[in-house]
């Protein structure tokens, strides 16, 4: 994990000082609300329905145990004892009070955490694969590049007032777990014909009101040009992106309106003028890679024999093992998912005591590190086979072992009407209702890989348009209704879901979902996943069933 040096630390402390002054001036009436709004957003601070909401950055999803303990402390001292993990691998607090936010940020800074650029029309947190460095299908660890990009984006003087927010994701594996194609800039590590590793760069992807899948602007970029290419894209966007209409201000609209070919030509023209002045040296890359060297794995970890026995003896453990852990590139280790989708708790939420306990588990079993995923779960990435059983028991006692990763109850869900002032409809309550309706784990496991994403409004924070099943809250004359889409995906075969039909009322949404699942079970061929069935049979059978006597 990247270790802050003195400069990194100074920067976040200076940011706290700056924000303290800004907050003070706002509270004294010396800074107008519009101005303060822009400044506080760039420190992750929204004004929500009940109180400010603060979004804390978790760069590419990596957390050390001491940082988890700080998140727990902040949850206790400044909030109501819990926090929420978001689809951008960040953390949100829903109840801090404005005047105490500078103190809160100062505490975070003591463990190298901050809220810089977690909101606002600026370069946001760079996200990545939550299995980076440990998965079996990786070409190269993306995290060193994420950190290089993090530093480049942090307080970039030219791109702090963009037309709209800007998100970058990097993935280095075959299986895209970072929704790379749905980012303003997506970066894949790839190998070219001569065997050299570099980047494929996509631009113009994004969710929200007009979901669009990113397109390739550079099929192969040499590593040394990473930052110059990003800078070229950003400069073109900063100068030409629309500023007249915030719904048309994302880079995806610029790419669409300009046309991919012309947009790419503009970027290339800009890039050719700067690329030799901003080379990313091999030494810099090597130094960054040295920050992400593998932990001290035990060479005899694969000689464990107890695991096989436990798996035969304990069916509950075996289920958890199957759904909540995955293969590791080191034999004798697995990566373990910590489910934040217990049936009775809002998706992505975690309590202060759970955070503290999890920090201990990370120290005991996984080299003191935890990762957040874009599906709002956590990962202990380096667990020895011999430790899995005791880890499972301890997670289970914390209610963090629901064996539902990748299943229908592993829903992505935004805060919705309960917290968000922009919401049209509730999402947490619906998630709970769906969970109650699907209380049979065997059934859930039988229907397998189904991703439900649910957002409380068009802004689509929960990426509903790329959910296998997407649920979108809409307002109909002051009532909460829900629009359903099917067939979306944020992975390699990225796709925007198709609308099933008219939206359904709140009392019908859960039944609509269970009916959709019934249709799948009825139509699926052997081994066919939900997404494959939807592709094969189309929407009609689902339509018929969902809208029958509604």
């Amino acid at each position: 994990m990247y270790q802050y040096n003195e400069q990194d630390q100074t920067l976040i402390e200076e940011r706290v000082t700056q924000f303290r002054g800004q907050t003070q001036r706002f509270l004294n009436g010396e800074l107008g609300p519009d101005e303060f709004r822009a400044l506080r957003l760039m420190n992750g601070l929204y004004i929500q329905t009940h109180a400010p909401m603060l979004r804390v950055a978790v760069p590419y999803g990596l957390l050390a145990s001491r940082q988890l303990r700080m998140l727990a402390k902040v949850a206790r001292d400044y909030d109501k004892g819990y926090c929420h993990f978001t689809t951008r691998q960040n953390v949100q607090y829903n109840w801090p009070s404005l005047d105490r936010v500078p103190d809160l940020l100062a505490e975070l800074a003591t463990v190298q955490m901050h809220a810089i650029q977690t909101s606002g029309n600026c370069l946001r947190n760079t996200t990545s694969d939550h299995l980076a460095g440990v998965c079996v299908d990786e070409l190269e660890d993306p995290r060193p590049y994420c950190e290089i990009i993090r530093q480049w984006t942090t307080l970039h003087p030219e791109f702090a007032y963009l037309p709209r927010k800007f998100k970058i994701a990097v993935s280095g594996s075959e299986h895209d777990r970072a929704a790379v194609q749905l980012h303003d800039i997506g970066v894949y590590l790839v190998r070219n014909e001569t065997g050299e590793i570099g980047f494929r760069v996509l631009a113009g992807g994004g969710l929200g009101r007009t979901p669009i899948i990113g397109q390739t602007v550079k099929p192969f970029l040499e590593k040394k040009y990473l930052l110059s290419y990003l800078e070229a894209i950003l400069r073109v966007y900063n100068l030409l992106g629309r500023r007249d209409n915030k719904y048309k201000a994302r880079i995806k609209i610029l790419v669409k309106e300009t046309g991919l070919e012309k947009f790419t030509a503009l970027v290339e023209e800009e890039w050719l003028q700067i690329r030799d002045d901003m080379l990313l040296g091999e030494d810099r890359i090597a130094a960054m890679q040295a920050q992400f060297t593998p932990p001290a794995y035990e060479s005899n970890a694969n000689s464990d024999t107890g695991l096989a026995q436990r798996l035969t003896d304990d069916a509950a453990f075996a289920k958890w093992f199957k759904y909540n852990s995955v293969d590791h590139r080191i034999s004798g280790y697995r990566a373990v998912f910590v489910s934040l989708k217990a049936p009775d708790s809002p998706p992505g939420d975690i309590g202060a005591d759970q955070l503290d306990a999890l920090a201990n588990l990370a120290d005991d079993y996984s080299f003191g590190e935890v990762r957040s995923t874009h599906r709002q779960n956590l990962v202990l990435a380096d667990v020895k086979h011999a430790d899995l059983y005791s880890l499972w028991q301890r997670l289970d006692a914390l209610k963090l072992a629901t064996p539902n990763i990748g299943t229908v109850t592993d829903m992505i869900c935004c805060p919705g009407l309960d917290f968000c002032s922009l919401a049209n409809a509730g999402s947490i309550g619906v998630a709970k209702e769906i969970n109650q309706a699907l209380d049979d784990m065997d059934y859930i496991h039988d229907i397998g890989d189904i991703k439900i994403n649910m957002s409380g409004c068009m802004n689509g924070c929960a990426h509903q348009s790329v959910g296998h099943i997407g649920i979108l809250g809409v307002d109909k004359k002051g009532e909460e209704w829900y629009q359903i889409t099917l067939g979306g995906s944020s992975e390699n075969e990225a796709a925007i879901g198709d609308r099933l039909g008219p939206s359904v009322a709140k009392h019908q949404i859960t039944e609509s979902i269970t009916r959709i699942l019934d249709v799948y079970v009825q139509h699926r061929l052997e081994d066919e996943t939900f997404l494959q069935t939807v592709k094969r049979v189309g929407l009609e059978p689902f339509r018929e069933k969902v809208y029958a006597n509604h």
Partner: protein
Amino acid sequence: MPIIKNQRILENTWTFVEDDAPLPAGDITVSAKRWTEDKAALLQHTGKLGVRLAPADNVAALGDDLPVIKLIELNFPAFNDGRTFSQARLLRSRYGYQGEIRAIGNYMTDQVFYLHRVGVDSFEFNNPKDMALALSAIKDFTIRYQASTR
């Protein structure tokens, strides 16, 4: 009205001239439009010459004229129009502009650090009270992660 230049408070000696107004004596700035249309007449002026740019103006259009332009005012219609930052950066880094670049209009002291980094070296504020704040805001951060003008 005083301005900040090179981190010192100085009296402003420049006057902006509207497109249809006659040229007064002394140092003047004009719009990009007037600069292009009226260049010959402007070059006869005895005071120093400057241009005021709006965010949509393309700095490349000033091209070969930069050596005679002693001041470029970058006007913020609203503080969140970030094109200004790219304009300054391009003027300095790409076109090698050596004259004064001044931020004017509706922007915040909180943006002075970034403006200074992309090459703006003087600042005019609608509210003179902002000057003291701006002088300290230039030094908000001692750390720089990216290459820029400075």
